[in-house]
């Protein structure tokens, strides 16, 4: 069983939702990322999403754009990001790592080369933001050959027909984008998200993650009641950016927010019985 599937299986038996945390690799400088990844796991993160910096992050808001720019100033390439995952795996063989980024760096490396190098480094899944299922056949073939799960987004604008098609090619988990907008945008409407999650449940047995707009412990706890995974990104990257001139403080500051989210998500009063109990 893959690390992603194992992680969700274990959480399911403990009746908990996964905390999925995103940081941009190499932000604000490459040597921060490895200790940060370990600190995130220690703070209760179940799955790490590692952003691959790109010069034109069209689907990201200002916070993650700035993170990409900081990392690119240090020349952080896709190959360098894979090196960080390899280093992480020297100490951690259980926490799944999802690469999140844009297609062009993967095109340049080559699909086959990317899939094999990512698998070798210990990557478990890949979310390519600007690659909808319609364009993904060739990359999926290579990812599949190397046991890497393709993660796809579902959006508030996705028709029922599209959602069904996406769920049929997705592996690992599906990622519901809770708001119309870019990463780090306005607050989410939990009731509306709950309705969509219910709709997606009818289409797939895969775990459902919800991201975009989760900023604090309270919103994390409310999403944990309806989804299998709570995905937080910009709120963490914002902390990284604010600490860019005190990089040694970054792991502790990010861990503090994640611990608060973890506690709120796991607090008995906040836990409903609807999760993961289909």
């Amino acid at each position, binding site marked *: 069983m893959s690390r992603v599937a194992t992680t969700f299986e274990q959480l399911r038996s403990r009746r908990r939702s996964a905390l999925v945390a995103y940081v941009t690799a190499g932000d604000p400088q490459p040597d921060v990322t490895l200790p940060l990844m370990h600190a995130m796991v220690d703070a209760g993160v179940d799955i790490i999403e590692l952003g691959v910096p790109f010069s034109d992050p069209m689907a990201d808001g200002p916070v993650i754009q700035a993170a990409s720019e900081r990392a690119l100033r240090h020349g952080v390439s896709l190959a360098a990001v894979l090196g960080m995952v390899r280093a992480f795996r020297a100490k951690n063989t259980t926490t799944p790592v999802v690469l999140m980024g844009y297609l*062009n*760096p993967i095109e340049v490396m080559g699909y086959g080369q990317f899939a094999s190098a990512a698998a070798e480094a210990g990557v478990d899944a890949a979310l390519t933001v600007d690659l*909808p299922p319609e364009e993904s056949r060739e990359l999926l073939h290579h990812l599949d050959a190397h046991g890497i799960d393709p993660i796809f987004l579902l959006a508030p604008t996705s028709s029922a027909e599209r959602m069904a098609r996406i769920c049929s090619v997705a592996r690992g988990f599906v990622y519901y*984008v809770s708001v119309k*907008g870019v990463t780090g945008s306005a607050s989410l409407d939990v009731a509306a998200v709950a309705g969509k999650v219910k709709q997606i449940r009818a289409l797939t047995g895969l775990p459902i993650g919800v991201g975009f707009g989760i900023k604090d412990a309270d919103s994390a706890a409310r999403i944990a009641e309806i989804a299998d995974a709570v995905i937080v990104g910009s709120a963490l990257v914002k902390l990284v950016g604010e600490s860019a001139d005190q990089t040694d403080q970054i792991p502790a500051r990010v861990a503090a927010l994640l611990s608060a989210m973890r506690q709120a998500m796991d607090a008995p009063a906040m836990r409903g019985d609807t999760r993961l109990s289909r």
Partner: protein
Amino acid sequence: MSKPKPSATPSYGDMPDERGHFGPYGGMFVAETLMDPLEELRQAYQHYRNDPDFQATLDADLAHFVGRPSPLYHAERWSKVLGGAQIYLKREDLNHTGAHKINNTVGQALLAQYMGKKRIIAETGAGQHGVASATVAARMGMDCVVYMGEEDIRRQAINVYRMRLLGAKVVAVTSGSRTLKDALNEAMRDWVTNVDDTFYIIGTVAGPHPYPAMVRDFQAVIGREARAQLFERCGRLPDALVACVGGGSNAMGLFYPFLNDAGVALYGVEAAGDGLISGRHAAPLCAGRPGVLHGNRTYLMEDAQGQIIETHSISAGLDYPGVGPEHAWLKDCGRAKYAAITDDEALQAFHALTRIEGIMPALESSHALAYAAKLAPEMDNEQIMIVNLSGRGDKDIHTVAALEGIEV
């Protein structure tokens, strides 16, 4: 001399496929949130392009608001100086707002209105597409927001003021290289956030499907007119077409109705900036390689890791690291040839046309003219070349003056 056939729907131009592919190029490479809105746009466009009411309104707008048809002007003196082919200029510089951009914004704004959208957004580099968008928005009474790189706002202050006079809100983009590509990213971010009531008018034949085909179709009025005008004047097809290529909309507009005419050579001219060898240029077709940016697969200017790199051209309208996917395909299949012209060569052509024909071309169009000046002497004086004079040079006077050390 072969007898010209009347303009036909080009089978060569049976592109793109249903999902927007021109061979391996084009497509829809966007985040999921935009996939259904793009499908809605595709369906609306498919519907209205065949709707007689829509077409009649568009034709009337092109005639009475834009000022079409634009003349096809025989540049006799310049042709004689160059000593080769007879050069005809398609006078898109005479359109309302001074460039070909308005052909597309009139079409897309009308589509926005038919689709019930209340707000239009656009990206702009030099400001020409922004002005053309602000112009149609003013006329239709729609809200308009134009995204423009902070660096371009500084360089193009007059166009910024022009857009504001027209009632548009100009938003400075401070991310990335603060130029056109970043403005496009920011417009996409706006669209994804306000997708219910907003129509995004992309200014060139790039972006996700259906934009490359839709913008081409709106600009194809250039080629259709040129074809009919030359037929009427000379009773024949041209031997060559020359147009500058940034994103490539004026070139696609001129080329498209001639794609099936094998005897008509097509030349697209990119910006070589300081020279292709210098690396400071904006010539992805001549010196880049295929990749994915802004929703489509095409030739790009990128580094070895796949990051998009900054471009350079004297002409802001050609200063873009990608190019429309149909051009990428026409290059690969050999139907069109692509060359690059340096800043210096373009400037020479700017002065030549100004002094010899009394027509001041945009610096973008000057790239096409400079290439025409190289090509014409190799052709005999019975042969005919059409150059797309895509815009007028008034907007560039400050740039030209500054290069010559003159303060205006």
